[in-house]
């Protein structure tokens, strides 16, 4: 089961109701056969812009994120279920990925174009497309092909 991160924006609610909303979302994850790894409270703050959701305009929200594991087939169902909840303003599920080791390629990118690998590949493609052209000063005084 891959790891996912659910970032939630809940509408401004008193504390007991907030707890019940989070319990509801957690239970729906459990019902789909998921495991919760971590809960993060990012606090309540004003939204960057007003958001109209479920027929109400929101200007403040409570941010929450839930790290969980489920089968990838259940993600769409979960999203749909959270979408129906009127206390949730936004819900986004992102896959948690381990950052792979890689080397910075900035040095190669800053080389002059003729030394860059991607540019050399482009030049090769252009050369492959090049058709041989008839040389007019080759000694023949007529054009040997059909015009």
């Amino acid at each position, binding site marked *: 089961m891959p790891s996912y991160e659910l*970032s939630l*924006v809940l509408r401004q609610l008193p504390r007991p109701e907030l707890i019940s909303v989070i319990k509801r979302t957690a239970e729906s994850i459990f019902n789909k056969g998921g495991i919760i790894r971590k809960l993060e409270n*990012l606090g309540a703050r004003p*939204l*960057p*812009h007003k*958001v109209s959701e479920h027929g109400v305009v929101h200007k403040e*929200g409570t*941010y929450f*994120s839930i790290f969980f594991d489920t089968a990838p087939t259940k993600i769409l169902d979960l999203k749909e279920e959270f979408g129906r909840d009127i206390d949730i*303003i*936004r819900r*986004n599920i*992102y896959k948690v990925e381990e*950052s792979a080791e*890689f080397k*910075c*390629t*900035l*040095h190669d*990118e*800053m080389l002059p174009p003729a030394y860059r690998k991607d540019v050399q590949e482009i030049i090769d493609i252009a050369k492959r497309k090049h058709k041989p052209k008839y040389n007019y000063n080759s*000694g023949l*005084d007529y054009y040997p092909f059909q015009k």
Partner: protein
Amino acid sequence: MLKITQLIARNATVANLAGSRSLQPRLYSNAVAVNEEATTTTPNAATNADEPIEMANPFEKEPQQCILCKHNITPNFKNVKLLSQFQSPYTGRIYGRHITGLCKQKQQDVEQAISRAQHSLLMPGYHKDVDFLHDPKLFDPEKPVRPHKY
């Protein structure tokens, strides 16, 4: 016309060859002398201090690294303070690679993280967050690393 010129050219070469025939023996003698010199100098070449040495390019620059690779930072969509540094304060648009000076991979990561942050209402899309307006600047958009397209 072409044929005539070709004929003239051919004749001219023949005439030259005929003229140089008398010089041939002297040329051969010169060539022999050169060969002898070459054979005498080759054994000395290995020990000669004035010969060029094979070495790495001493003027080669140190490999550059982008600012995120240098400090080993992977951008995350919840790290809004970092991400807003790559955003224009006037329009909220993400600065391009020619301005930020990031490598391709990191620029892609930053762009993905910013779009995620904007979708999950952590970051405004049309302006920079007012709290971060006076953050230190990582680059100058007026002086891009590479020139603008326009």
